[in-house]
């Protein structure tokens, strides 16, 4: 039989890449998560994780910071996106750039700068680790909230808001009954783009809290740094499950509507 080139062969490099760098490592994580230091199958890591109150606290703190960051970002980002999407400004590329640009600057550098500024105003990681971390997180993730919100806001149907007002809704009621539901796709994208990344990030909390706040990301890093591969893998696996759960939770709502997110 003669070899015939088919278009599907183009996908081979990607399949190899997928297998080598995504699927195989996943199996490694799963393997390490459910084995002991000698390599035999065991629930040791799981048991250790769930019996260790410190670990539980890490999850709780991470969840707290993530939810707070997301909420603060939404509260700050929503009006900004709304204003930017208004006719008067939405051709003003420079203005929009200013809000998006921080995203393109190396974030290690940004975090270092944030730390120095916070230090200068007396919010050191030693004294106020939680507040410092929160400020750093909000600063870092705000563009990720503004961008998807901005792109949905551009598509807001003003006549719907007029219709709501026409039917008796006061400006505040119009906002909650129409503007928010209309921008839901953007809000969902914004949440997916902040909630989970904040939980798993570790550079920001590490640098700004001077090691006083441990998030899941930090905890995984510490486990691996101390050669506790099994514990680290189990935490990573747990994080992965959490991510999948939120994705699953938000996707259901997204399906019917026009997707206003980044992708």
């Amino acid at each position, binding site marked *: 039989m003669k070899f015939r080139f088919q278009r599907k062969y183009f996908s081979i490099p990607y399949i190899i890449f997928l297998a080598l760098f995504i699927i195989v490592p996943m199996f490694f994580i799963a393997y390490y998560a459910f084995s002991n230091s000698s390599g035999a199958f065991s629930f040791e890591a799981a048991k250790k994780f769930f019996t260790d109150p410190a670990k539980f606290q890490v999850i709780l703190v991470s969840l707290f910071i993530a939810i707070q960051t997301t909420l603060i970002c939404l509260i700050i980002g929503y009006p900004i996106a709304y204003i930017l999407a208004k006719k008067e400004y939405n051709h003003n590329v420079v203005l929009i750039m200013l809000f998006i640009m921080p995203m393109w600057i190396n974030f290690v550098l940004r975090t270092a700068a944030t730390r120095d500024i916070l230090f200068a105003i007396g919010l050191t990681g030693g004294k106020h680790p939680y507040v410092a971390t929160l400020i750093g997180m909000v600063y870092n993730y705000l563009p990720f909230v503004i961008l998807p919100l901005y792109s949905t806001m551009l598509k807001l149907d003003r006549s719907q808001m007029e219709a*709501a007002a*026409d*039917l008796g809704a006061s400006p505040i009621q119009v906002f909650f009954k129409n503007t928010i539901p209309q921008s839901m796709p953007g809000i969902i994208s914004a949440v997916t783009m902040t909630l989970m990344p904040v939980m798993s990030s570790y550079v920001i909390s590490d640098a700004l809290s001077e090691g006083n706040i441990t998030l899941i990301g930090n905890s995984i890093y510490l486990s691996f740094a101390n050669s506790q591969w099994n514990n680290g893998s189990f935490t990573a696996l747990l994080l992965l499950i959490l991510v999948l759960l939120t994705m699953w939770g938000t996707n259901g709502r997204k399906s019917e509507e026009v997707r206003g997110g980044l992708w």
Partner: protein
Amino acid sequence: MASEEVIISLSNVVKSFGDFHAVDNFSLDIKKGQFVTILGPSGCGKTTTLRMIGGFELPTGGTILLNGKDITKLPPYKRPINTVFQRYALFPHLDVYDNVAFGLKFKKVPVKCTNRKGEEVIKMKHFKASQIDEMVTKALQVVDLDELEDRDVTTLSGGQQQRVAIARCIINKPEILLLDEPLGALDLKMRKDMQIELKEMHKKLGITFIYVTHDQEEALTMSDVIVVMNHGVVQQVGTPEQIYNEPTNAFVADFIGESNLFNGIMVGDKKVKFLGQEWLCEDDFPLDERVDVVVRPEDVILSEVNEKSKIFGQVTSKVFKGVHYEYLIQIGKNEVLAKSTKNYDDKELAIALIPDGIHIMKKPDLNNIFTGCEVQKDNTVELAGGYLETDLTKLLPGSKIDDDGYLVKGEKKYDLTGAKLTIEIDKTKIDIYDNEEGQIKGTVVSSIYKGDHYAIIVRSEDDEEFIIDTNYEFNGGEIVSLLIKKEDVSIRLKGDIDEYEI
């Protein structure tokens, strides 16, 4: 069924955007229960007027009274007025039921209840779910949608969405229902059905309807009163019969129904000259006054040419329209549109007019109006032997001209070559030259000094007349040329632009 009670009264309402007056000195009283249509070409200010009544735009001047109370500055949610929007503006995140129930959730009604002491008191309360249920069902029945209450609004057809939009309004029992070109997005058949249904709904509900449209036929079919607008100014207010039979000016005559518009001059007592002929007429105007003459196509009497025929011309087109034939007859430089049930095969036909069929109107002293100007391949428009550059994008807001010279808006593309436009040119915007600088050549037939300027009338080679205000003196008989700039040519399309879609 319309009572004598005035429900809404607009007086001297003005809306300006910068220097541009979208609505200028609009005054109108609408009686309770009437079906009023505001009719005019796109950009005439009709939607702006409606939006001011709805509360979405604040007037720059003037007042709006509802039942005698000033509501000029009241926000929309406090007005007992509801709007059916052009594109319905339904809420896609809600189903049919919730869309219709939307307005009820904000309403509070006085409810009698007993307080702790056992006394009867009246409290303002939201509707109960069961009450809302009942009202939604009723509203959906009115619009014939009772089967669809659980459907997602995005899955409905245009006509069904339209009905939801109406149900959503009438459930609030508004005092006035505003309808902003609600049938524009429907196909022809659907539009006809909805016209009848809307009219019936109006009768059944007894709510005052204010309807905005650019479709003169729709206006004539449905309304008790028609308000014709142009350039933000009310041209005429009257019943459909009045508007059709006794238009007050050439614009109204031209806009309402098909008509022949000629420039005429009064030559005697109830005698007017146009088409190179003197005619008896019923309107009295001063001698020598220049007038607009309107003749409806159905008033043109056709006959075969014989030796007695005074006025006859070549038949340039003949179209069978079902009940009648439509003939275009070239008489001199003028085209005459005529309707007749008789089928003539002649190449030439004679025309006659009875005095009752000749409507004479005072020429508006502002502008020059020309009808039936044909768009050429290069998007210029032929007028009086010259070619004017025009901005065709004015015909369709938001459109542009592409590289091939077609008019495009979104996905739609229009080829306007051959389309007949009505052209309006301000008399102060025409430059007059004693050389061949301008596009149109003609002869000065009169020049009158008006204190600070000359009012000049120039007649082109094909008998079109231009009124021009200028600072320079010209003598009668002088050969001149006229220059008209692209931005000063205001254009209007006869018929629907969709006919030219390609």
